[in-house]
């Protein structure tokens, strides 16, 4: 028969193909600096202080050259707060000039009107503004006093500059699940696209996980809301563990760590995923011979992650095919075995496993660049700010946003 006959077998499903890994990531997260002007209580990268060993501008450009050679389609630049690096714009421009798309995550503090104009006129740069509450009270309890105002100001400037479709990115917590509609309204107001992602017990998130992760009931609420809002809300596939409820959410519904995506950190360390900054998930360093390319293709960790999964303790569960056993990082940092259920398994299989962990201290995220040294592994109380007495009793987020406007 002809060559074509050999292709008549059904091609692999996309998700099955991706589980086996690719010769290059499709995209990746690049944390540019551990420096940050904020100190969010749940920071996945435990950021705050710059690491003295950060990649230099030249090293960053060499890395971008590698990304180009490997045809990585885009990078999501984060940190810390990436715009704090003095060479931030130089690197963004270098990336886009070298066929690597850029999306960057920011708390908005450096989004001036001029910056917003510059972004609006670029086709190859996308922006993601972080916000974790639709009101200052809820947001600032996690991200710090004034951070809501900063983010909204940035969104106003983006909208004024005509940048339609930038992302408003929210980490879902116990305290903001009730604000889903309000987040959508905020995004609509500034012509942004809403993005919701999952809180993990990663970085400083480990300290506030017990208090901030959604309850089982709230997970269900979130799931129903996501189903109802379908394609217009992005999730970065970070809720694929909710597929255990039945219907899958839009997305690949797989863990991409080490298979189609990964993290490069400010000192060039390559981790499977930004939620897994720990030696256990460290694949190598871009400064080593062979650079990022060799780490991606040949590191022991990534080769291991690309072996077909067998499900382990989840193999006999009817939902395993949908949920794939959930999030590796969520399991690791709650002390659960990686071949068992997710701590937030929607069928409740995580509960007895967590109980078995008991008071044993789970692995500690490392490194830690927090400005305030983290204490022993005890939960940190996250108190909502008291209602400001001079504010009208209206908690509607648009009223709060209006009050935050600073004419200039």
């Amino acid at each position, binding site marked *: *028969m002809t060559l074509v*006959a*050999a*292709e*008549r*077998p*059904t*091609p*692999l499903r*996309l998700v*099955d193909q*991706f*589980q*086996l890994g690719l010769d290059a990531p*499709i*995209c*990746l*997260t690049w944390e540019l600096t551990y420096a940050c002007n904020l100190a969010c209580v749940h920071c996945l990268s435990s950021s705050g202080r710059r690491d003295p060993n950060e990649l230099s501008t030249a090293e960053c450009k060499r890395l971008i050259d590698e990304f180009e050679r490997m045809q990585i*389609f*885009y990078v*999501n630049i*984060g940190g810390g707060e990436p715009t704090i690096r003095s060479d931030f714009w130089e690197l963004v421009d270098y990336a886009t000039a070298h066929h690597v798309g850029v*999306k960057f*995550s920011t708390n908005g503090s450096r989004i001036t009107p001029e910056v917003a104009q510059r972004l609006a006129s670029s086709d190859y740069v996308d922006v*993601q503004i972080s916000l974790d509450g639709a009101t200052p009270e809820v947001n600032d309890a996690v991200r710090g006093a004034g951070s809501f105002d900063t983010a909204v100001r940035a969104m106003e400037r983006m909208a004024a500059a005509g940048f339609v479709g930038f992302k408003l*990115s929210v980490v879902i917590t116990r305290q903001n699940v009730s604000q889903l509609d309000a987040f959508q309204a905020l995004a609509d107001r500034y012509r942004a696209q809403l*993005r919701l*992602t999952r809180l993990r017990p990663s970085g400083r998130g480990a300290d506030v996980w017990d208090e901030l992760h959604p309850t089982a009931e709230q997970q269900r609420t979130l799931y129903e809301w996501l189903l109802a809002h379908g394609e217009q809300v*992005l*999730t*970065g*596939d*970070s809720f*694929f563990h909710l597929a255990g409820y039945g219907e899958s959410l*839009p*997305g*690949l519904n*797989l*863990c*991409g*760590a080490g298979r*189609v*995506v*990964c*993290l490069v950190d400010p000192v060039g360390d390559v981790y*499977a*995923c*930004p*939620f897994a900054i720990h030696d256990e998930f460290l694949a190598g360093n871009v400064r080593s011979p062979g650079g990022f390319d060799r780490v991606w293709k040949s590191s022991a960790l990534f080769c291991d992650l690309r072996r*077909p999964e*067998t499900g382990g303790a989840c193999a006999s569960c009817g939902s395993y095919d949908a949920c794939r056993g959930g*999030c590796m990082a969520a399991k690791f940092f709650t002390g659960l075995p990686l071949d068992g259920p997710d701590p937030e398994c929607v069928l409740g299989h995580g509960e007895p496993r967590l109980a078995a962990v008991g008071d044993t201290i789970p692995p500690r995220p490392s490194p830690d660049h927090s400005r305030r040294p983290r204490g022993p592994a005890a939960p940190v109380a996250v108190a909502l700010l008291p209602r400001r007495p001079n504010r009208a009793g209206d908690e509607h987020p648009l009223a709060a946003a209006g009050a935050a406007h600073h004419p200039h």
Partner: protein
Amino acid sequence: MPDPVIEHRDPSPATADPAMDESRAEPTLVEADLLVEDVSIDGMCGVY
């Protein structure tokens, strides 16, 4: 008896898919979706 198939791609993982039985693949009934699948670039977990 189906003609022998020259396997030109990497061996399948352990989870064999019965749909890969070549004798059942009718090209004219194969959906175009089989050859092209669209994915959202935001739709894979592990990136901000």
